């Protein structure tokens, strides 16, 4: 059953209201009751809706439920210690306060006399970040009625870093996990602390508040887990001009034992499965790295580039450069070491000239410059060959008519 995000939001709103009246109960009993209530609503929707349920049906089902305050006075409930906040919520609350305090101190130490700390100076490359710039997560585009939206934060691009090719902001988009840290301040983009496998490899936050994981939805800097009935905060911090999303990880230790959450750290861009073969198609490109793609699309898929100027973007760890003309889509894609894919005819970085000619036949264009042999075919591919290294670069171009 497909539940629109507006209805999900309404369901959680109702469950949240009920939770407010369960303060007398221990957290585990609260969770039990809320989980039962949540599945009750979904089951009722499924039993009555044909296809996608309407908001009218949901409102009717909620209206049939007992009023939220009646849960707190239900019969046969053993009394227990009062909780103004459940342990999990206390942890989230106090850790949020702590994080904000640490950020404030870090920012103040970096530039204590500046009244405009959103403008950071260019740091040394590869240095451990000295200061981070928090970017408040804007809400999804379809907030529930009556929910106020915070203003989009003002953000200045530091001098010397040209981002004019793309404008990516806010949490919506693809994120790839890069680390898992105990504290936000532990994160260093150049030295990941987590050496094991990151089970949550990608998180795709869609504009409508849904995600690529059916059990997750998001809104206003919070990620909701429909199954576990948890709410995890997230925030985006800018470190060395790149956006990193820090997500509280609501493990059993946090939810059940009230421990402080650790953080998944994500960078922009989709997860690239290293085991999946990478095939370069002549005149097209590889995967979403395609001719005609806009800079925004490429950043959404592959993350923020390592180098950027007015006409190209490069991802060093992938070994790819996309060349464009301002606002006119990708015109040329260059693949080089460490790119480990092949062309559709089996040519890869390091292939010999003989191998290339056998695969593609005589080129439609051939030239030489500074010891590098250039061979190009009208199908939309070009290779650069150096005698001692073989193929050093494969370029995908628009096909040309013979």
């Amino acid at each position, binding site marked *: 059953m497909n539940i629109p995000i507006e209805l999900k939001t309404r369901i959680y709103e109702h469950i949240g209201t009920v939770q407010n009246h369960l303060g007398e109960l221990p957290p585990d009993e609260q969770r039990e009751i809320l989980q039962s209530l*949540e599945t009750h609503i979904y*089951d009722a929707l499924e039993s009555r809706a044909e296809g996608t349920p309407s908001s009218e049906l949901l409102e009717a089902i909620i209206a049939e439920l007992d009023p939220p305050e009646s849960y707190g006075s239900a019969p046969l409930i053993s009394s227990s210690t009062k909780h103004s906040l459940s342990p999990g919520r206390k942890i989230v609350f106090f850790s949020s306060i702590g994080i904000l305090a640490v950020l404030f101190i870090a920012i103040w130490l970096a530039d204590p006399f500046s009244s405009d700390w959103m403008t950071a100076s260019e740091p040394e490359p590869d240095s451990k970040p000295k200061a981070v710039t928090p970017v408040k997560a804007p809400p999804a585009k379809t907030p529930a009625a009556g929910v106020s939206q915070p203003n989009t934060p003002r953000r200045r691009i530091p001098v010397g870093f040209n981002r004019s090719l793309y404008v990516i902001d806010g949490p919506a988009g693809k994120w790839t996990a890069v680390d898992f840290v105990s504290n936000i301040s532990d994160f260093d983009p150049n030295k990941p602390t987590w050496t094991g496998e990151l089970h949550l490899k990608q998180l795709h936050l869609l504009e409508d508040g849904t995600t690529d994981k059916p059990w997750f939805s998001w809104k206003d800097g919070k990620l909701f887990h429909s199954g576990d009935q948890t709410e995890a905060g997230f925030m985006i911090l800018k470190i060395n001009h790149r956006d990193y999303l820090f997500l509280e990880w609501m493990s059993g230790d946090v939810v059940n034992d009230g421990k402080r959450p650790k953080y998944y750290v994500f960078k922009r861009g989709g997860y690239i499965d290293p085991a999946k073969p990478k095939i370069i198609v002549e005149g097209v490109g590889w995967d979403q790295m395609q001719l005609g793609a806009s800079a925004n699309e490429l950043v959404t898929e592959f993350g923020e580039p390592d180098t950027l100027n007015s006409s190209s973007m490069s991802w060093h760890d992938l070994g790819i450069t996309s060349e464009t003309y301002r606002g006119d889509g990708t015109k040329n894609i260059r693949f080089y070491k460490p790119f480990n894919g092949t062309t559709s005819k089996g040519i890869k970085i390091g292939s010999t000239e003989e191998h290339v000619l056998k695969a593609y036949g005589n080129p439609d264009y051939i030239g030489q410059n500074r010891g590098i042999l250039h061979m190009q075919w009208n199908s939309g591919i070009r290779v650069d060959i150096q005698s001692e290294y073989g193929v050093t670069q494969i370029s995908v171009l628009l096909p040309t008519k013979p």
Partner: protein
Amino acid sequence: MSTWVTQLRKGLMEFCILNLLQHGESYGYEILQSLQKIEELVVTDSTVYPILSRLKKDGYLKVQVKPSSSGPPRRYFSLTALGRQRVQEMNVYWKSLNLGIARLQHEKPGGEE
């Protein structure tokens, strides 16, 4: 009268849930619908779900989570060994109580029919 009925219903709810689950596992919404067939009980969500939670906490019920096509995973409740023992004891007591009450309804005070 109404207070007496309310108190009686409250006391019977746990008894009815345990009896229902004697016949197999069930999830919250299904349990609620089954109990609502006894109109006199006037069962609602705010009474059943807290009781299910408490019965689980007391060790009479266990929960198994299974995927659901409707949305979040369903939580299937079933009796534990302790729960089975409890419902047997309750049924014995209920039967005995019923007999006693039936006798009272037909006897004059002092034991004469």
